[in-house]
């Protein structure tokens, strides 16, 4: 007799949950149990997921999220400086820098950082679009606001070489950021100061 297991749909759900970052098999199982505990919990989640797939996409230019049918509030805002570009790892970094109030240019989300050990190569990041964009915008300065861990620093070094070859001024966020940290662990005041004191690469 086969060993008892959850019915196939639940096994499939657990398998899906396991693919989420930071979720091991045990946590995935706990999450399935939580969902199954009360039928009312599943519907809102399904609804939200469906909504995301039909109503949101990433801006082709900056990579931040836009609601379908609307213009990018960042890229299409004429009040923003068009010749200064801030490169970040994730869309969440855009929000953090915006809340610091220190930056009024345009953003460019890379979608990660160079990390050979995690199999992330330049082709996996939005680097080609970045190069195309600095040309079409006739950008003058690019701020590299990527993390200060090993991979973040390597990404900054890599982009610096490419961008300087295009004749651009490249700066890095100033010290004051916790070493080895990503932007999401930094408070807004620190970010503000880091943007003010950015250094030339």
């Amino acid at each position, binding site marked *: 007799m086969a060993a008892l297991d959850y019915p196939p749909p639940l096994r499939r759900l657990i398998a899906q949950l396991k693919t989420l970052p930071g979720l091991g098999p045990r946590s995935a199982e706990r999450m399935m149990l939580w969902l199954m505990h009360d039928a009312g919990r599943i519907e809102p989640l399904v609804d939200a997921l469906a909504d995301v797939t039909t109503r949101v996409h990433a801006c082709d230019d900056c990579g931040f999220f836009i609601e379908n049918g609307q213009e990018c509030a960042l890229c299409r805002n004429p009040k923003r400086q068009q010749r200064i570009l801030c490169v970040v790892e994730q869309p969440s970094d855009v929000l953090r820098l915006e809340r610091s109030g220190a930056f009024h240019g345009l953003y460019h989300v890379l979608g990660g950082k*160079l990390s050979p050990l995690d199999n992330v190569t330049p082709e996996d990041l939005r680097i080609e679009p970045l190069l195309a964009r600095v040309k079409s915008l006739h950008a003058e300065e690019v701020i590299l606001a990527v993390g200060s861990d090993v991979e973040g620093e390597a990404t900054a070094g890599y982009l610096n070489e490419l961008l300087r070859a295009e004749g651009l001024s490249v700066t890095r966020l100033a010290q004051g950021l916790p070493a080895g940290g990503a932007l999401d662990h930094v408070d807004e005041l620190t970010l503000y100061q880091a943007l003010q004191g950015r250094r030339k690469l």
Partner: protein
Amino acid sequence: MPARPANSTENPATRVSTRPLPFSPAFCSRMLSDLLLRDFRCFTECRVPLHPETTLFIGRNAQGKTSLMEAACVLLRLQSPRTSQKGELIRLGATTMLVEGTLDGKKVRCAQSATARRLAIDGAVCGRSGDYLAQSGLVVWMDHRDMNLLRGGAEHRRRYLDFAASQMFPDYLKALRGYERAVRGRNYVLKRDAVIQWRQADAFAGVMDEFAQVLRDRRQSLMDSVRPHVAKVHHDLSTGAEAVEVSYVPGFSGASLAEELAARRDEEGRNRQTAAGPHRDDLTLTLNGLDASTYASEGQQRSAALALKVAQARVLEEAAGKPPLLLLDDVFGELDAQRRRALLGLLPPGTQKIITTTTLDWARDEVVGGMVYGVEVGVVKQIEAGEIL
């Protein structure tokens, strides 16, 4: 090495005794006075009072005595010379291990699960390991593998550098971890593609560079301090018959590692690995001017290995202003009586020692006082000297 005639005036033969040695209150406040292990390696729970000078753990192999020393090392330095896999420290079937002790009158505590670590000093949680380590004590670990400092590959000598330098310089471990990660990333880039993506390799070389400078500076200054001690200690161990020199050989020579790597592109293209940097650092040891790894006898190599470790203890003592805790894992059994006596005499006075041994035969002739424990399948029991001798 010429055998020295037994000198009856020094080290009168004394039996191992459990009588506490007289010690000054100053030493008393500079030590680890007890150790509590919970779900650590083979120990479910074990509480051991430690002697201010010498604590002996006696037992057959694989009974857990080295794990007791390891627990002391993990508690003080958050690392083990036996493993880099933190999970190995957790008892099979348990989810979290805990080591706790009283150091200089403060309660220090380290708990580790598969994914998280909790540190506390006197009940206050310590979020950063750097803060914890700064308040903790220093450690020297000696065991039979120290012969690898002479006979083994360069990685053993780099581990020697790392173990001491990480205790002396607060920025060392961060530079080491960063460097190691960057060089692994770079080596992966060099191996990954048929046509090497040099721009990516260079980006990682740039990151390595800054860490490499820190590591080279720190290792150099460590060895500048260690060198005279090694010569002196070996001189004493060999009763002046031999001269040992140790020197640091950095794995890159110029001002910039990134530039040196750029100049060695052809070589890296052929070998597909990073050609220079602190991961290629080494130490050379000479005995009377000759390479000690090839030309020294086994006895001479053993003395040189001891000299390196005793020198480490002295340098750490200079750096911290107090002697480190000495963890001696089964080293006395394999030394001859003369080296054993010399070693005991060379250790900084007042140093607290934890010693493991399979037999007490060697101790019959030495002045070794303190607490004696028997260790059998993860159970520790204090024993009276009379029971075993």
